[in-house]
Protein backbone atom coordinates (compact mmCIF):
# COMPACT_ATOMS: atom_id res chain seq x y z
CA UNK A 1 0.00 0.00 0.00
CA UNK A 2 1.29 3.47 -0.88
CA UNK A 3 1.61 6.07 1.86
CA UNK A 4 -0.47 9.19 1.20
CA UNK A 5 0.87 12.68 1.79
CA UNK A 6 -0.56 16.19 1.49
CA UNK A 7 1.37 18.64 -0.69
CA UNK A 8 -1.15 21.43 -1.29
CA UNK A 9 -4.16 23.01 0.36
CA UNK A 10 -6.73 25.64 -0.54
CA UNK A 11 -9.62 27.15 1.33
CA UNK A 12 -12.64 29.35 0.73
CA UNK A 13 -14.37 30.33 3.95
CA UNK A 14 -16.29 33.04 5.79
CA UNK A 15 -13.01 34.08 7.45
CA UNK A 16 -10.88 34.34 4.36
CA UNK A 17 -9.96 32.83 1.02
CA UNK A 18 -6.28 32.16 1.65
CA UNK A 19 -4.64 29.67 3.99
CA UNK A 20 -3.01 32.54 5.87
CA UNK A 21 -6.17 34.61 6.39
CA UNK A 22 -8.12 31.50 7.38
CA UNK A 23 -5.53 30.31 9.91
CA UNK A 24 -4.82 33.74 11.41
CA UNK A 25 -8.51 34.26 11.96
CA UNK A 26 -8.96 30.84 13.58
CA UNK A 27 -6.04 31.36 15.95
CA UNK A 28 -7.36 34.82 16.86
CA UNK A 29 -10.72 33.25 17.70
CA UNK A 30 -12.67 35.53 15.36
CA UNK A 31 -16.18 34.60 14.32
CA UNK A 32 -17.12 34.78 10.64
CA UNK A 33 -20.84 34.58 11.33
CA UNK A 34 -23.02 37.55 10.31
CA UNK A 35 -26.68 38.49 10.02
CA UNK A 36 -28.15 38.00 6.55
CA UNK A 37 -30.62 40.54 5.21
CA UNK A 38 -31.98 38.74 2.16
CA UNK A 39 -34.36 36.28 3.79
CA UNK A 40 -37.94 36.60 4.92
CA UNK A 41 -37.97 37.70 8.55
CA UNK A 42 -40.12 34.70 9.41
CA UNK A 43 -37.11 32.47 8.68
CA UNK A 44 -36.09 31.16 12.09
CA UNK A 45 -32.33 31.41 11.46
CA UNK A 46 -31.19 34.59 9.70
CA UNK A 47 -27.45 34.31 10.31
CA UNK A 48 -24.76 32.62 8.26
CA UNK A 49 -21.11 32.39 7.32
CA UNK A 50 -20.71 33.89 3.87
CA UNK A 51 -17.62 33.52 1.67
CA UNK A 52 -16.99 36.94 0.10
CA UNK A 53 -15.37 37.92 -3.21
CA UNK A 54 -14.68 34.49 -4.59
CA UNK A 55 -13.46 34.93 -8.15
CA UNK A 56 -10.91 32.27 -9.08
CA UNK A 57 -7.77 33.48 -10.84
CA UNK A 58 -7.30 32.25 -14.38
CA UNK A 59 -10.95 31.32 -14.92
CA UNK A 60 -12.27 33.57 -17.75
CA UNK A 61 -15.24 35.73 -16.74
CA UNK A 62 -17.35 34.14 -19.49
CA UNK A 63 -16.65 30.78 -17.87
CA UNK A 64 -17.42 32.15 -14.39
CA UNK A 65 -20.95 32.93 -15.58
CA UNK A 66 -21.43 29.27 -16.54
CA UNK A 67 -20.45 27.90 -13.14
CA UNK A 68 -22.59 27.47 -10.06
CA UNK A 69 -21.38 29.18 -6.92
CA UNK A 70 -20.29 25.90 -5.31
CA UNK A 71 -18.21 25.12 -8.41
CA UNK A 72 -16.44 28.49 -8.29
CA UNK A 73 -15.58 27.86 -4.65
CA UNK A 74 -14.03 24.51 -5.59
CA UNK A 75 -12.04 26.06 -8.45
CA UNK A 76 -10.69 28.80 -6.20
CA UNK A 77 -9.65 26.37 -3.45
CA UNK A 78 -8.19 23.99 -6.05
CA UNK A 79 -6.12 26.82 -7.56
CA UNK A 80 -4.56 27.55 -4.18
CA UNK A 81 -3.85 23.87 -3.52
CA UNK A 82 -2.44 23.20 -6.99
CA UNK A 83 -0.15 26.24 -6.80
CA UNK A 84 1.12 25.31 -3.36
CA UNK A 85 1.87 21.78 -4.56
CA UNK A 86 3.80 23.20 -7.51
CA UNK A 87 2.36 20.66 -9.92
CA UNK A 88 2.60 20.97 -13.70
CA UNK A 89 0.19 18.77 -15.62
CA UNK A 90 2.53 18.82 -18.62
CA UNK A 91 5.09 16.79 -16.70
CA UNK A 92 2.52 14.35 -15.26
CA UNK A 93 0.66 11.40 -16.73
CA UNK A 94 -2.84 12.98 -16.82
CA UNK A 95 -4.47 9.58 -16.35
CA UNK A 96 -2.64 9.24 -13.01
CA UNK A 97 -4.07 12.56 -11.75
CA UNK A 98 -7.68 12.73 -10.59
CA UNK A 99 -10.27 14.77 -8.75
CA UNK A 100 -12.69 13.69 -6.07
CA UNK A 101 -14.67 16.72 -5.00
CA UNK A 102 -17.88 16.27 -3.06
CA UNK A 103 -20.76 18.50 -2.12
CA UNK A 104 -23.61 17.93 0.27
CA UNK A 105 -26.32 19.62 -1.74
CA UNK A 106 -24.80 20.88 -5.01
CA UNK A 107 -26.11 23.75 -7.08
CA UNK A 108 -29.16 24.49 -5.00
CA UNK A 109 -28.94 28.21 -5.74
CA UNK A 110 -29.50 27.60 -9.45
CA UNK A 111 -32.13 24.97 -8.74
CA UNK A 112 -34.02 27.46 -6.57
CA UNK A 113 -33.73 30.21 -9.17
CA UNK A 114 -34.95 27.99 -12.01
CA UNK A 115 -37.78 26.50 -9.96
CA UNK A 116 -39.02 30.09 -9.56
CA UNK A 117 -38.56 30.74 -13.30
CA UNK A 118 -40.51 27.58 -14.10
CA UNK A 119 -43.26 28.60 -11.72
CA UNK A 120 -43.47 32.18 -12.95
CA UNK A 121 -42.68 31.91 -16.65
CA UNK A 122 -43.20 28.29 -17.66
CA UNK A 123 -40.82 25.61 -18.92
CA UNK A 124 -39.25 27.75 -21.65
CA UNK A 125 -37.77 30.04 -19.02
CA UNK A 126 -35.67 27.28 -17.45
CA UNK A 127 -31.99 27.88 -18.25
CA UNK A 128 -30.10 25.42 -20.46
CA UNK A 129 -27.21 25.94 -18.04
CA UNK A 130 -29.17 24.67 -15.03
CA UNK A 131 -27.74 21.17 -15.25
CA UNK A 132 -24.22 22.48 -15.96
CA UNK A 133 -24.37 24.69 -12.89
CA UNK A 134 -26.50 22.52 -10.68
CA UNK A 135 -25.45 18.88 -10.84
CA UNK A 136 -23.53 17.89 -7.72
CA UNK A 137 -20.71 16.20 -9.66
CA UNK A 138 -19.95 19.32 -11.71
CA UNK A 139 -17.41 20.64 -9.21
CA UNK A 140 -15.33 17.50 -9.69
CA UNK A 141 -15.84 17.83 -13.45
CA UNK A 142 -14.89 21.51 -13.53
CA UNK A 143 -11.72 20.91 -11.51
CA UNK A 144 -10.73 18.13 -13.91
CA UNK A 145 -11.30 20.37 -16.94
CA UNK A 146 -9.44 23.30 -15.37
CA UNK A 147 -6.30 21.34 -14.53
CA UNK A 148 -6.47 18.62 -17.20
CA UNK A 149 -6.91 15.74 -14.73
CA UNK A 150 -7.97 12.69 -16.73
CA UNK A 151 -7.66 10.08 -13.99
CA UNK A 152 -10.28 8.91 -11.46
CA UNK A 153 -13.06 11.46 -10.96
CA UNK A 154 -16.13 11.36 -8.75
CA UNK A 155 -18.39 13.19 -6.35
CA UNK A 156 -19.25 11.72 -2.99
CA UNK A 157 -22.44 12.92 -1.33
CA UNK A 158 -22.76 12.06 2.36
CA UNK A 159 -24.20 15.28 3.80
CA UNK A 160 -21.88 16.72 6.44
CA UNK A 161 -19.37 13.87 6.14
CA UNK A 162 -18.88 14.60 2.42
CA UNK A 163 -15.59 16.50 2.67
CA UNK A 164 -13.93 13.92 4.91
CA UNK A 165 -15.25 10.93 2.95
CA UNK A 166 -14.09 12.48 -0.31
CA UNK A 167 -10.58 12.87 1.09
CA UNK A 168 -10.69 9.31 2.45
CA UNK A 169 -11.81 7.91 -0.90
CA UNK A 170 -9.17 9.88 -2.80
CA UNK A 171 -6.53 8.62 -0.36
CA UNK A 172 -7.67 5.04 -0.96
CA UNK A 173 -7.31 5.57 -4.71
CA UNK A 174 -3.67 6.48 -4.11
CA UNK A 175 -3.11 3.73 -1.52
CA UNK A 176 -4.27 1.18 -4.09
CA UNK A 177 -2.01 2.62 -6.76
CA UNK A 178 -4.82 3.79 -9.04
CA UNK A 179 -3.55 7.38 -9.13
CA UNK A 180 -0.45 9.36 -8.13
CA UNK A 181 -2.14 12.72 -7.50
CA UNK A 182 -5.69 13.52 -6.37
CA UNK A 183 -7.31 16.92 -5.88
CA UNK A 184 -9.92 16.28 -3.26
CA UNK A 185 -12.24 17.88 -0.75
CA UNK A 186 -15.68 19.41 -0.60
CA UNK A 187 -17.57 22.52 -1.55
CA UNK A 188 -20.90 24.02 -0.55
CA UNK A 189 -22.99 27.13 -1.28
CA UNK A 190 -26.38 27.01 0.36
CA UNK A 191 -26.82 30.46 1.89
CA UNK A 192 -30.05 31.18 0.08
CA UNK A 193 -33.64 31.53 1.31
CA UNK A 194 -34.33 27.88 0.44
CA UNK A 195 -31.32 26.60 2.41
CA UNK A 196 -32.00 28.66 5.50
CA UNK A 197 -35.71 27.84 5.40
CA UNK A 198 -35.14 24.10 4.96
CA UNK A 199 -32.66 23.70 7.81
CA UNK A 200 -34.69 26.10 9.96
CA UNK A 201 -37.79 24.01 9.37
CA UNK A 202 -36.13 20.95 10.88
CA UNK A 203 -35.01 23.08 13.83
CA UNK A 204 -31.37 22.30 13.23
CA UNK A 205 -30.19 25.92 13.15
CA UNK A 206 -29.33 28.42 15.87
CA UNK A 207 -31.85 31.23 16.22
CA UNK A 208 -29.51 33.65 17.99
CA UNK A 209 -30.23 36.20 15.29
CA UNK A 210 -29.33 39.19 17.44
CA UNK A 211 -25.87 37.90 18.36
CA UNK A 212 -24.56 36.09 15.26
CA UNK A 213 -20.99 35.83 16.54
CA UNK A 214 -22.21 34.00 19.65
CA UNK A 215 -24.52 31.63 17.78
CA UNK A 216 -22.17 28.74 17.06
CA UNK A 217 -21.11 27.40 20.47
CA UNK A 218 -20.16 23.73 20.22
CA UNK A 219 -20.12 21.82 23.53
CA UNK A 220 -21.42 24.88 25.45
CA UNK A 221 -24.43 24.20 27.63
CA UNK A 222 -26.50 26.93 25.96
CA UNK A 223 -25.96 25.88 22.34
CA UNK A 224 -29.12 25.90 20.25
CA UNK A 225 -28.22 24.60 16.81
CA UNK A 226 -25.69 25.00 14.03
CA UNK A 227 -25.06 28.01 11.81
CA UNK A 228 -25.28 27.51 8.06
CA UNK A 229 -22.09 28.43 6.26
CA UNK A 230 -20.42 28.11 2.87
CA UNK A 231 -17.04 27.63 1.25
CA UNK A 232 -14.69 24.92 0.05
CA UNK A 233 -11.58 23.04 1.07
CA UNK A 234 -9.32 21.22 -1.39
CA UNK A 235 -6.21 19.16 -0.70
CA UNK A 236 -3.62 17.82 -3.08
CA UNK A 237 -2.94 14.22 -2.06
CA UNK A 238 -0.03 12.31 -3.55
CA UNK A 239 1.66 9.01 -3.01
CA UNK A 240 4.72 9.56 -0.87
CA UNK A 241 6.92 8.13 -3.64
CA UNK A 242 5.51 10.53 -6.24
CA UNK A 243 5.87 13.55 -3.99
CA UNK A 244 9.45 12.68 -3.05
CA UNK A 245 10.42 11.85 -6.60
CA UNK A 246 9.46 15.33 -7.78
CA UNK A 247 10.91 17.02 -4.70
CA UNK A 248 7.63 18.39 -3.38
CA UNK A 249 7.30 19.96 0.07
CA UNK A 250 5.28 17.48 2.13
CA UNK A 251 2.92 19.25 4.54
CA UNK A 252 1.72 16.19 6.46
CA UNK A 253 0.81 12.55 6.02
CA UNK A 254 -2.77 11.35 5.83
CA UNK A 255 -2.00 8.33 7.97
CA UNK A 256 -5.44 6.79 8.26
CA UNK A 257 -9.12 7.12 7.57
CA UNK A 258 -12.28 5.19 8.29
CA UNK A 259 -16.00 5.41 7.72
CA UNK A 260 -18.94 3.90 9.55
CA UNK A 261 -22.70 4.39 9.46
CA UNK A 262 -24.97 4.71 12.49
CA UNK A 263 -27.79 2.80 10.73
CA UNK A 264 -30.06 4.31 13.34
CA UNK A 265 -32.10 7.37 12.26
CA UNK A 266 -32.13 9.68 9.18
CA UNK A 267 -30.73 12.69 11.03
CA UNK A 268 -30.25 11.93 14.74
CA UNK A 269 -26.95 10.36 15.78
CA UNK A 270 -26.82 7.24 17.95
CA UNK A 271 -27.05 8.86 21.40
CA UNK A 272 -24.12 6.83 22.75
CA UNK A 273 -21.84 7.99 19.93
CA UNK A 274 -20.80 4.41 19.22
CA UNK A 275 -20.78 4.83 15.43
CA UNK A 276 -18.52 7.86 15.63
CA UNK A 277 -16.30 6.09 18.16
CA UNK A 278 -15.92 3.12 15.81
CA UNK A 279 -14.84 5.42 12.97
CA UNK A 280 -12.15 6.98 15.19
CA UNK A 281 -10.89 3.60 16.42
CA UNK A 282 -10.73 2.15 12.90
CA UNK A 283 -8.97 5.20 11.46
CA UNK A 284 -6.36 5.12 14.24
CA UNK A 285 -5.89 1.39 13.70
CA UNK A 286 -5.25 1.93 9.98
CA UNK A 287 -2.73 4.64 10.91
CA UNK A 288 -1.10 2.32 13.42
CA UNK A 289 -1.46 4.95 16.12
CA UNK A 290 -2.71 4.12 19.63
CA UNK A 291 -5.32 6.56 21.01
CA UNK A 292 -2.97 7.86 23.71
CA UNK A 293 -0.63 9.22 21.01
CA UNK A 294 -3.28 11.60 19.63
CA UNK A 295 -2.37 15.23 20.36
CA UNK A 296 -5.50 16.98 19.14
CA UNK A 297 -9.04 16.28 17.95
CA UNK A 298 -10.82 18.60 15.57
CA UNK A 299 -14.41 17.77 16.49
CA UNK A 300 -17.35 17.68 14.16
CA UNK A 301 -18.85 19.84 16.95
CA UNK A 302 -21.83 21.37 15.19
CA UNK A 303 -23.37 23.18 18.16
CA UNK A 304 -26.54 21.09 18.07
CA UNK A 305 -27.73 19.49 21.29
CA UNK A 306 -27.65 15.97 19.87
CA UNK A 307 -24.40 16.00 17.89
CA UNK A 308 -22.20 17.46 20.57
CA UNK A 309 -23.51 15.18 23.31
CA UNK A 310 -23.11 12.02 21.21
CA UNK A 311 -19.69 13.02 19.88
CA UNK A 312 -18.52 13.74 23.43
CA UNK A 313 -19.42 10.20 24.44
CA UNK A 314 -17.55 8.93 21.38
CA UNK A 315 -14.40 10.78 22.50
CA UNK A 316 -14.82 9.35 25.99
CA UNK A 317 -15.19 5.82 24.60
CA UNK A 318 -12.07 6.08 22.42
CA UNK A 319 -9.76 8.09 24.66
CA UNK A 320 -10.93 7.23 28.16
CA UNK A 321 -10.31 9.45 31.15
CA UNK A 322 -7.31 11.40 29.76
CA UNK A 323 -8.62 12.70 26.45
CA UNK A 324 -6.65 14.95 24.06
CA UNK A 325 -7.66 18.60 23.65
CA UNK A 326 -10.67 19.17 21.41
CA UNK A 327 -11.90 22.18 19.46
CA UNK A 328 -14.48 22.76 16.78
CA UNK A 329 -13.62 25.00 13.84
CA UNK A 330 -17.37 25.47 13.42
CA UNK A 331 -17.44 27.65 16.54
CA UNK A 332 -15.91 30.36 14.33
CA UNK A 333 -16.88 29.60 10.75
CA UNK A 334 -20.19 27.78 11.17
CA UNK A 335 -21.12 24.56 9.41
CA UNK A 336 -19.96 24.29 5.80
CA UNK A 337 -21.92 21.02 5.36
CA UNK A 338 -20.24 19.10 2.52
CA UNK A 339 -17.16 21.33 2.69
CA UNK A 340 -16.80 21.14 6.48
CA UNK A 341 -14.60 18.05 6.67
CA UNK A 342 -12.29 19.39 3.96
CA UNK A 343 -11.87 22.85 5.48
CA UNK A 344 -11.29 21.22 8.87
CA UNK A 345 -8.68 18.96 7.29
CA UNK A 346 -6.85 22.12 6.22
CA UNK A 347 -7.12 23.36 9.83
CA UNK A 348 -5.64 20.08 11.14
CA UNK A 349 -2.63 20.21 8.84
CA UNK A 350 -2.01 23.85 9.84
CA UNK A 351 -2.32 22.83 13.51
CA UNK A 352 0.53 20.35 13.01
CA UNK A 353 2.57 22.84 11.02
CA UNK A 354 2.27 25.69 13.53
CA UNK A 355 2.01 23.63 16.73
CA UNK A 356 -0.96 25.75 17.70
CA UNK A 357 -4.45 24.55 18.53
CA UNK A 358 -7.15 26.99 17.48
CA UNK A 359 -9.79 27.67 20.11
CA UNK A 360 -13.39 26.56 20.41
CA UNK A 361 -14.99 29.96 20.90
CA UNK A 362 -18.22 30.71 22.76
CA UNK A 363 -17.42 28.00 25.28
CA UNK A 364 -18.77 29.82 28.33
CA UNK A 365 -20.60 27.19 30.36
CA UNK A 366 -19.54 23.55 30.37
CA UNK A 367 -22.30 21.04 29.72
CA UNK A 368 -22.30 17.93 31.93
CA UNK A 369 -23.56 16.05 28.85
CA UNK A 370 -20.39 17.01 26.96
CA UNK A 371 -17.49 15.71 29.05
CA UNK A 372 -14.75 16.83 26.64
CA UNK A 373 -11.40 18.56 27.05
CA UNK A 374 -12.36 21.75 25.20
CA UNK A 375 -9.72 24.31 24.18
CA UNK A 376 -11.88 27.15 25.42
CA UNK A 377 -11.90 30.54 23.73
CA UNK A 378 -8.18 31.17 23.26
CA UNK A 379 -5.60 29.39 21.14
CA UNK A 380 -3.09 27.13 22.80
CA UNK A 381 0.47 26.36 21.78
CA UNK A 382 1.16 22.64 21.89
CA UNK A 383 3.32 20.16 20.06
CA UNK A 384 0.88 18.43 17.73
CA UNK A 385 2.21 15.49 15.75
CA UNK A 386 -1.07 13.62 15.41
CA UNK A 387 -4.41 15.33 14.71
CA UNK A 388 -7.73 13.56 14.33
CA UNK A 389 -10.70 15.10 12.47
CA UNK A 390 -14.27 13.87 12.76
CA UNK A 391 -17.12 14.45 10.34
CA UNK A 392 -20.59 13.15 11.14
CA UNK A 393 -23.37 13.55 8.62
CA UNK A 394 -27.13 13.40 8.36
CA UNK A 395 -27.80 9.90 7.12
CA UNK A 396 -25.70 8.51 9.95
CA UNK A 397 -22.35 8.88 8.12
CA UNK A 398 -19.28 8.96 10.36
CA UNK A 399 -15.84 9.64 8.94
CA UNK A 400 -12.51 10.14 10.68
CA UNK A 401 -9.23 11.33 9.16
CA UNK A 402 -5.89 10.96 10.95
CA UNK A 403 -3.15 13.46 10.08
CA UNK A 404 0.45 12.90 11.09
CA UNK A 405 3.54 15.09 11.02
CA UNK A 406 5.71 13.96 8.11
CA UNK A 407 9.28 13.22 9.09
Amino acid at each position, binding site marked *: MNRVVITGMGVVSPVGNTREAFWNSLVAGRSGIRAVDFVDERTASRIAGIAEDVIPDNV*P*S*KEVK*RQGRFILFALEAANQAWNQAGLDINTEDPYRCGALVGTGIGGVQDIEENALRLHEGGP*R*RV*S*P*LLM*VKGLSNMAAGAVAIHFGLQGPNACIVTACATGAQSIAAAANTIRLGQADVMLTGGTEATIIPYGLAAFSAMRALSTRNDTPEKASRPFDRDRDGFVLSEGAGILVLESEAHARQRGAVILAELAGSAETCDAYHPVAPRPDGSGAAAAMRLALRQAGIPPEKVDYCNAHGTSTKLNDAAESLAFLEVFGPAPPPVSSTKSMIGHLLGAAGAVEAVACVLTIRYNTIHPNINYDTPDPECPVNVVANTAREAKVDIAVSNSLGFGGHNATLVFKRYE
Partner: protein
Amino acid sequence: MSEDISSKVKQLIAERFERSIEEITDDARFNEDLGADSLDTTELMMALEEEFHIEIDDEANSITTVGEAIAYIQKRAAN
Protein backbone atom coordinates in the same frame (compact mmCIF):
# COMPACT_ATOMS: atom_id res chain seq x y z
CA MET B 1 -37.20 49.76 -36.30
CA SER B 2 -35.17 47.06 -38.04
CA GLU B 3 -31.91 49.02 -37.60
CA ASP B 4 -32.87 49.28 -33.98
CA ILE B 5 -33.38 45.50 -33.68
CA SER B 6 -30.08 44.82 -35.41
CA SER B 7 -28.05 47.00 -33.07
CA LYS B 8 -29.89 45.74 -29.99
CA VAL B 9 -29.26 42.10 -30.94
CA LYS B 10 -25.59 42.79 -31.60
CA GLN B 11 -25.22 44.65 -28.32
CA LEU B 12 -26.80 41.76 -26.44
CA ILE B 13 -24.58 39.17 -28.15
CA ALA B 14 -21.46 41.25 -27.44
CA GLU B 15 -22.35 41.47 -23.76
CA ARG B 16 -23.24 37.83 -23.30
CA PHE B 17 -20.29 36.41 -25.22
CA GLU B 18 -17.89 39.07 -23.89
CA ARG B 19 -16.78 40.25 -27.31
CA SER B 20 -16.22 43.75 -28.64
CA ILE B 21 -19.13 45.06 -30.68
CA GLU B 22 -16.90 45.22 -33.79
CA GLU B 23 -16.60 41.43 -33.73
CA ILE B 24 -20.36 40.99 -33.94
CA THR B 25 -20.65 41.22 -37.72
CA ASP B 26 -23.64 39.86 -39.66
CA ASP B 27 -21.68 36.86 -40.89
CA ALA B 28 -20.03 36.04 -37.56
CA ARG B 29 -20.76 32.40 -36.68
CA PHE B 30 -21.69 31.74 -33.06
CA ASN B 31 -19.63 28.60 -32.75
CA GLU B 32 -16.57 29.07 -34.96
CA ASP B 33 -16.12 32.85 -34.70
CA LEU B 34 -17.56 33.76 -31.31
CA GLY B 35 -16.58 30.64 -29.34
CA ALA B 36 -20.10 29.84 -28.20
CA ASP B 37 -21.26 26.26 -27.69
CA SER B 38 -24.84 25.02 -28.02
CA LEU B 39 -25.63 25.90 -24.40
CA ASP B 40 -24.43 29.47 -24.94
CA THR B 41 -26.56 29.88 -28.05
CA THR B 42 -29.62 28.39 -26.34
CA GLU B 43 -29.15 30.87 -23.51
CA LEU B 44 -28.79 33.66 -26.06
CA MET B 45 -32.08 32.67 -27.69
CA MET B 46 -33.79 32.81 -24.29
CA ALA B 47 -32.35 36.25 -23.68
CA LEU B 48 -33.60 37.40 -27.10
CA GLU B 49 -37.06 36.03 -26.31
CA GLU B 50 -37.14 38.10 -23.14
CA GLU B 51 -35.68 41.21 -24.75
CA PHE B 52 -38.09 41.27 -27.70
CA HIS B 53 -41.10 39.62 -26.06
CA ILE B 54 -41.31 36.90 -28.68
CA GLU B 55 -41.31 33.14 -28.63
CA ILE B 56 -38.56 31.49 -30.62
CA ASP B 57 -39.65 28.23 -32.27
CA ASP B 58 -37.73 25.21 -33.56
CA GLU B 59 -36.90 27.06 -36.76
CA ALA B 60 -34.31 28.88 -34.65
CA ASN B 61 -32.32 25.65 -34.28
CA SER B 62 -30.86 26.24 -37.73
CA ILE B 63 -29.58 29.72 -36.83
CA THR B 64 -25.78 29.75 -36.82
CA THR B 65 -24.83 33.37 -37.53
CA VAL B 66 -25.55 36.79 -36.10
CA GLY B 67 -27.23 37.91 -39.33
CA GLU B 68 -29.59 34.92 -39.30
CA ALA B 69 -30.55 35.70 -35.71
CA ILE B 70 -31.28 39.33 -36.58
CA ALA B 71 -33.36 38.35 -39.60
CA TYR B 72 -35.34 35.87 -37.51
CA ILE B 73 -36.04 38.42 -34.77
CA GLN B 74 -37.06 41.05 -37.32
CA LYS B 75 -39.49 38.62 -38.93
CA ARG B 76 -40.99 37.57 -35.58
CA ALA B 77 -41.16 41.08 -34.17
CA ALA B 78 -43.03 42.24 -37.30
CA ASN B 79 -45.77 39.63 -36.77
